[in-house]
């Protein structure tokens, strides 16, 4: 057992650091630091993604034949850590981590050849069409129907909580293609052109005041059958595969650590009247830091297990649980640290387009919206209650 890096790994770390220094625009960094929503706007990411794509570093999880960089788990770890350290925005997971793996796993060659390069280049902006009003964490109850008409499906229904539907030109969606006694059956996985006639989008403001999610309505939207991924009626399987991917924590500790450092820096400054002198703040900084240390070790254990070919298994639910709780502890600490300045609401969105002197220091503006939006971490992607049900069943056998 060893926590240190090999000489090769240290060299790679240097490469990544230099690459970031050379290619990350300053305005991207500012925009990222002023983003209180879960995902960064496509316009914030685009320049960085182009640079990454030129280097072949967009999709660390993909097989090399489809454009993955072929990194070892340690290299992925180093890359994520350096990105976190530098305040790099995350590439949208909708393409690289969500629909990409499904197309790689179950798509036709035509679908792979067309979609995968566009995902890497950022030519398509994807959104996810899973949840529906009333379905919540129970996806099998979905009602959006796709009825076969020649070589098209005609889609009617509605999806909700659709992140970036207003930016996206593509949606991957679970739709009902037939009625079956078992609700999970009869669901298919299709790719929808968001510019199609019959698609309308209603913005939903988050509790933090951000426009990140939407409700999407489908009114006789025609989708070519060739844009169905995998077999008809097997969409549930692909969707679950993807959900596990989504839950599969990955490497979150590095970004959480930087988020905590940001709060600690606020606490250690005039901006907050040196909140750090409050013994409660100081102690909670340590508490959360140790929580991150434990999470990091768990992530490293999973990476080490993957390196020796083992399956991480249900540990992803456990990581999802802890990541969401730690995220909330950090944003909450942020609110406590800025004290009275947390009473100030800045209505301008996106915050990075702000061009007047705000009432409080600019850096503090995202603190409360982040905390507010962050309450979603224990809800989206399977609420914590669902994760506990899953862990109980899969890990403890109860």
């Amino acid at each position, binding site marked *: 057992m060893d926590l240190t890096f090999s000489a090769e790994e240290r060299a790679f770390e240097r490469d990544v650091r230099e690459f970031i220094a050379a290619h990350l625009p300053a305005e991207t960094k500012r925009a990222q630091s002023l983003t209180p929503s879960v995902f960064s706007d496509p316009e914030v990411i685009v320049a960085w993604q182009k640079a990454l794509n030129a280097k072949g570093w967009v999709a660390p999880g993909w097989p090399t034949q489809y454009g993955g960089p072929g990194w070892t788990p340690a290299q992925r770890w180093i890359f994520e850590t350096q990105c976190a350290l530098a305040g790099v925005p995350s590439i949208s997971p909708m393409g690289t981590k969500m629909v990409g793996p499904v197309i790689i796993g179950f798509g036709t060659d035509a679908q792979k050849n067309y979609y995968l390069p566009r995902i890497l280049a950022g030519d398509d902006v994807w959104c996810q069409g899973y949840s529906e009003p009333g379905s919540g964490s129970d996806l099998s109850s979905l009602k959006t129907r796709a009825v076969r008409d020649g070589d098209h499906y005609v889609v009617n229904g509605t999806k909700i909580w659709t992140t970036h539907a207003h930016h996206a030109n593509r949606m991957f969606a679970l739709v009902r293609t037939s009625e079956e006694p078992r609700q999970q059956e009869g669901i298919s996985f299709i790719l929808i052109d968001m510019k199609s006639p019959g698609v309308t989008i209603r913005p939903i403001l988050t509790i933090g005041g951000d426009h990140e999610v939407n409700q999407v309505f489908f009114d006789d939207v025609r989708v070519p059958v060739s844009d169905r991924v995998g077999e008809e009626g097997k969409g549930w399987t692909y969707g679950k595969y993807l959900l596990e991917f989504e839950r599969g924590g990955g490497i979150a500790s590095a970004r959480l650590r930087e988020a905590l450092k940001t709060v600690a820096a606020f606490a250690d400054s005039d901006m907050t009247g040196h909140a750090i002198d409050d013994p409660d703040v100081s102690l909670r900084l340590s508490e959360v830091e140790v929580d991150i240390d434990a999470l990091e070790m768990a992530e490293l254990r999973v990476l080490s297990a993957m390196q020796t070919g083992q399956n991480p298994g249900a540990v992803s639910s456990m990581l999802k649980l802890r990541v969401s709780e730690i995220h909330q502890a950090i944003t909450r600490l942020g609110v406590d640290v800025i004290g009275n300045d947390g009473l100030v609401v*800045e209505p301008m969105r996106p915050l990075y387009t702000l061009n007047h002197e705000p009432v409080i220091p600019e850096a503090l503006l995202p603190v409360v919206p982040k905390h507010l939006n962050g*309450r979603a971490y224990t809800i989206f992607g399977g*609420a914590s209650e669902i994760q506990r049900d899953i862990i109980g069943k899969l890990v403890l056998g109860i």
Partner: protein
Amino acid sequence: MDLTPSDEQRLLRDSAERFIAETYTTKLREKNAAEPLGFSAAIWKQFADLGWLALPIAEDYGGLGGGAVDVGILMESFGKGLVSEPYLATVVLGAGLVAEAGSDAQKQELLPKVADGSMLLAFAHAERAARSDLARVETTATRSGDGWRLDGAKIAVLDGRAAHRIIVSARVKDEDNKLALFLVAPDAEGVTLRDYPRLGGGQGCNLTLADVKTSIDARLGSADALPMIEAVTDRALAALSAEAVGIMQTLLDKTLDYTKIRKQFGRPLSSNQVIRHRLVDMSVACDEARSIALRAAMMADDGSVARGRAASGAKAKIGKGARFVAEQAVQCHGAMGVTEELDIGAYFKRLLAFETLFGGSSHHYRRHAMLSGR
């Protein structure tokens, strides 16, 4: 020893509850938020007509002579409606400071106007470097010609833009840096006011005072103002605590309704034992909050140690309970809870503002310990 409300208190509660249920709807709230001052002058007039503005003002000055328990009854209802009218700023803090620190002439001049609704007040005390320490003030007052000169910067002034007079705390250089209070007109020369919508409703502003001149009689009384600021802040803590109780209860009620109706995996959410027990814990937190808020109100006129311990104890404990209730209300509402589609978010934000105002739970537990001689 008796904890049953008097007939007057029951009447007050009934009329306040009725007003909130019938008048103070989500729609009114949205309308108020769009007002330039964040609240409605018409509603303020109604408050005056109902006698609510006069409630805690002494009878000698046109008031009804009510106590902190009566104010608490009103504030609990205000919490249920997320009332954004500046009751705390004007009546509890502003009129409270005038009553506590002002000369008889000042009281005669200001308090009847507060009671009849024609005078709005605000209190500018907090400074960024002070965090929640009431004694830490760097704004200065200097004798200058035949008046005072004020310099400094204040933050978190509740509803300052709406106020006709802002009560500013400052240290008097010539009097051994004694803390004093000054009445300042918001449009006085040298006053810069940056206002903003406040988290959870109402408005706030930051205030800069640069070479601001006031008349000699702008000073409220002449004694050391710190004990008075503490007394009035403790009463504000009791009032805010009662408001928080109303908010918490509303979140519990809404969450109960939602989880009974909302189905997932074919069963109502409330059929999950984990959800049921959480609702029970929320209800216990509400009940405890009600107990401890009432205690702070009943002890608002006790000696400074007992009063301060009761007020800080309530603020601290309700802060913890409010956080739990607010977070779990959102959690139980799922995705709907983290949007502006339902008003769960509005109640959540008001409770977050409650926790922030005048310092958080750990600050107040420490003050409680300090007042206990630890």
